[in-house]
């Protein structure tokens, strides 16, 4: 006979405002099997938990129902308390009378009646809970980091410095990400390359880091502590072990005029190339789409000039499988291209700003390349159209961002600051030039950030115009920018030589398909979702996977680096133990009913279902049935929904329990 204890939480007033908690306690106290019921202001607080523990001991309770908030919030808290009082933690269930009841209802009478039903259902369910032993699984103390921008680099270095092996996967030929493209960085204006390249070199030289550039994650199997990751190493056409990075091949390659993506297509590169001189690794790749050898079979010059014989036209993609225990996702961002409406996207284009049509309308990253000492103009601000120095320059902020009607409602966070930086860089380089900025608000929270922004106005003489631009068009060699100054209430028209658009920060292309491979969730923009916006900002809801950098939302470098170190700390916490305890809420097969159709095996996303032979004592095969490996099962219940004969069930969610809950209504 069960002696169930029910504890009704007021949640301050969150619950008790709309639910008569005392009446709920009194009513459920009368249910068969309930030995004790009470209510308390904050069940999760220390005194609340002590109340629970004391009642278990004094009342000799056998099962517990805590009626409070969502189990996502505090199930772990109460199970721990129950365990401390000597009961198996899985004999404790939560009834959600906050999110499912008090928060969504106004009528106290009705909400109370509903709360009684919710608790009554959980009483019936918990009666049939079994004692479950905790499952321990081994932890592979190696980590995968996906994305070699500043966030991925920082996470990899931190984890590796702690003595654990790291596999860093970058899909471009070099690590570095967007930070490698920047000229100087706010809020201090130190040169981006100067602070970035040493870190890139550290990665290359670190004995604990294996770097796979020009590579992508193909398949992720397994679970926290025990992932198997298949990585596609795209054919580089250059043997990394032989290449010394001398660069003769790049000098001799007759194809010279391929727009370099790294320079935002302003500079040119050969068909065999490294994206920038400080690339790590300094091993070129052949761009097969543009290489004469691959197109026509002729040429082959690079192979002839390569001293160590590193060029290999026959190279094929290879797949490597790496066992890892944790994954840090740091795939960063992309800038919104505004020329036209992106295909298949809900986001509307910004054709009215002429990007892609008027050559001297560029985006912020292109400006970074112009301003960069190692950029295509050697750091001179010159117009792409005719190479002249622009004397009037207009910056327009919030292109794409904060425009609900156009499809993006978030703020890209970095544009106010980098536009301020751009006006300074411009003023430093073009002393007689004038910069104008169209902006909606200046958002400059952060240490020394507002000071930085003020400096651009007060010392560097940028003219800030509060208002949006309605249209711009080419007139001779000028670009006419028409907008409004809402502070003064007048229309303004500026004849500019160059226009820089601060376009929205968006997730990388393909961010959603990577998320599907990893089994992590993402929002409607494809930014990856953290497990809890406030309390678990670097973890994914999928155990063992962590987030760093702009792939989770727009971020500047200090934020990306902090988050990367935080993710690394989470990985190291995981690796601090040899074995990992995990929830034993897993599926079990009732072998008597199982007919071995393996529908369960086909649907199990975790690969937890195996085939098991049942033999008699003489060793004759009786039948083959399904077996769920408890270490692998993620407790999703998909098999249970699929099994035609109802022969596999999730502990705590058995058909018997679900039906008992329905019948309690």
């Amino acid at each position, binding site marked *: 006979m069960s002696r169930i204890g029910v504890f009704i939480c007021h949640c301050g007033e969150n619950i008790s405002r709309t639910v008569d908690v005392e009446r709920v306690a009194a009513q459920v106290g009368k249910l068969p099997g309930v030995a004790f019921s009470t209510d308390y202001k904050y069940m999760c607080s220390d005194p609340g938990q002590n109340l629970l523990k004391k009642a278990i001991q004094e009342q000799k309770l056998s099962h517990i129902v805590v009626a409070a908030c969502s189990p996502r919030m505090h199930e772990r808290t109460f199970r721990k308390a129950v365990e401390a009082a000597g009961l198996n933690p899985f004999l404790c269930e939560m009834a959600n009378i906050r999110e499912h009841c008090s928060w969504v209802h106004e009528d106290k009478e009705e909400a109370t009646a509903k709360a009684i039903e919710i608790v009554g259902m959980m009483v019936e369910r918990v009666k049939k809970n079994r004692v479950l032993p905790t499952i321990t699984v081994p932890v592979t103390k190696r980590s995968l980091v996906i994305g070699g921008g500043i966030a991925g680099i920082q996470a990899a270095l931190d984890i590796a410095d702690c003595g654990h092996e790291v596999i860093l996967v970058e899909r471009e030929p070099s690590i570095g990400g967007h930070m490698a493209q920047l000229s100087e960085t706010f809020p201090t204006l130190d040169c981006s390359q100067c602070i970035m390249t040493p870190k890139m070199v550290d990665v290359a030289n670190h004995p604990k880091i294996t770097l796979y550039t020009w590579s992508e994650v193909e398949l992720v199997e397994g679970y926290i502590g025990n992932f198997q990751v298949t990585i596609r190493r795209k054919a580089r056409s250059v043997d990394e072990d032989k290449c010394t990075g001398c660069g003769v091949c790049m000098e001799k390659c007759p194809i010279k005029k391929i727009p370099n993506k790294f320079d935002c297509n302003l500079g040119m590169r050969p068909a065999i190339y490294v994206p920038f001189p400080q690339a790590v690794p300094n091993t070129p790749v052949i761009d097969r789409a543009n290489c004469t050898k691959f197109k026509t079979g002729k040429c082959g010059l690079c192979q002839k000039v390569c001293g160590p014989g590193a060029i290999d036209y026959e190279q094929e993609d290879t797949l490597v499988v790496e066992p890892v225990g944790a994954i840090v996702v740091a795939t960063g961002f992309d800038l919104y291209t505004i020329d036209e409406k992106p295909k298949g996207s809900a986001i509307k284009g910004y054709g009215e700003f002429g990007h892609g049509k008027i050559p001297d309308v560029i985006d912020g990253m292109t400006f970074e390349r112009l301003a960069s000492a190692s950029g295509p103009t050697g750091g001179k601000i010159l117009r792409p159209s005719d190479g002249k120095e622009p004397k009037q320059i207009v910056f327009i902020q919030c292109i794409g961002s904060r425009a609900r009607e156009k499809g993006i409602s978030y703020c890209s966070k970095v544009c106010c600051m980098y536009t301020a930086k751009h006006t300074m860089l411009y003023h430093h380089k073009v002393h007689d030039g004038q910069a104008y900025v169209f902006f909606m608000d200046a958002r400059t929270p952060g240490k020394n950030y507002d000071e930085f922004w003020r400096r651009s106005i007060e010392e560097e003489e940028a003219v800030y115009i509060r208002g949006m631009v309605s249209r711009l068009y080419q007139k001779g060699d000028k670009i006419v920018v028409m907008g409004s100054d809402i502070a003064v209430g007048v229309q303004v028209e500026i004849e500019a030589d160059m226009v820089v658009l601060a376009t929205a920060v968006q997730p990388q292309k393909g961010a959603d398909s990577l998320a*599907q491979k990893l089994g992590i969730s993402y929002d409607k923009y494809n930014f990856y979702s953290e497990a809890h916006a406030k309390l678990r900002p670097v973890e994914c809801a999928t155990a063992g996977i962590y987030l760093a950098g702009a792939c989770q939302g727009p971020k500047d470098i200090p934020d990306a680096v902090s988050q990367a170190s935080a993710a690394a700390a989470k990985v190291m916490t995981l690796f601090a133990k040899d074995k990992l305890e995990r929830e034993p809420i897993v599926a079990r097969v009732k072998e*008597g*009913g199982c*007919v*071995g*159709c*393996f*529908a369960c095996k*086909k*649907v199990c996303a975790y690969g937890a279902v195996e085939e098991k032979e049942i033999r008699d004592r003489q060793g004759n095969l009786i039948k*083959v049935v399904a077996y769920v490996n408890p270490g692998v099962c993620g407790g999703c219940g998909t098999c249970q929904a*699929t099994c*035609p*004969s*109802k*022969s596999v069930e999730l502990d705590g969610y058995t*058909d*018997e329990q679900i*039906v*008992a809950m329905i019948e309690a209504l």
Partner: protein
Amino acid sequence: MTQPIDTSIYAAVTAAIQGEAKRILSEGQVTAIVGYAAARRKGSAQPIVISQPDDAQKLIFTPACVNNLAVYLTKAKKEIPKTGKIGIVVKGCDLKALAGLMGESQLKRENLYLIGVPCAGVLGSTIQPDTELTSDSIAPKCTECNERMPPECDFVPAVQVPVNQGLEKKYAAEIARLEALTPQERWAYWKEQFSKCIKCYACRQVCPFCFCEQCLCDRNKPQMVETTPRPAGNFAWHIVRAMHLAGRCAGCAECERVCPMDIPLNLLNRKMAKELKELFEHEAGFEVQEKGPLNSFTDKDDQSFIK
């Protein structure tokens, strides 16, 4: 208008399978063969399992050979496959059931010797066995059949493959009629049909795909489907049946044939098959498919129902 159907192939097919059966039994290639033999009433046929070469002469193939013998390999006669490699006489529709069973780990191709039979059609379930095969007496499923020659068998008699002579597709016509009704009228139609069910579970017993040892309808802890033949429980059973067979049903129409209450069970099966074809481009066929549409997911799947 009644059209005659050419049944001249059946004699040649019978002779050929007798010869092949005798050969493989005497050579020890198989331990037993599941096929058809003449039954007591004139012109009728019944399933038979033979294991002696001399019994091969008992095998026949006629328009009365209606049964889907696949069921004898899974549950009804489970001990037969245990004896070794088994020969089985299969029509095209039956072969689809075998392919499905292989995909669901119930049978292995290497344990079977498939004796495929070219088929001009079998008689409908309400027709006397010695009736002439015509466009009226033919089973409805045969009016829609395009698989008169079972592919990839170990043996197929060398006779000219009969062609489907442009018979009116009976299920398609009936589905079109039902689809034209309002949801209320359709509901009323199925309600009436299902209310006739007496829960004898003959449809389940005869279906090769109902191979569960403990059908969920027989479970009582908890009871999922009411056991007495009352409207709610009947509905539950028929929905379970339709959903469990969706994408798997071979269209052999055995369920419909055995139903003592004449419930048009294969009509529902065909409708489900049509839905799956439209939604997932899936058809139960001769290929052993690793995953059915209801236990796989691709990003091309129709998601419109979520929004």
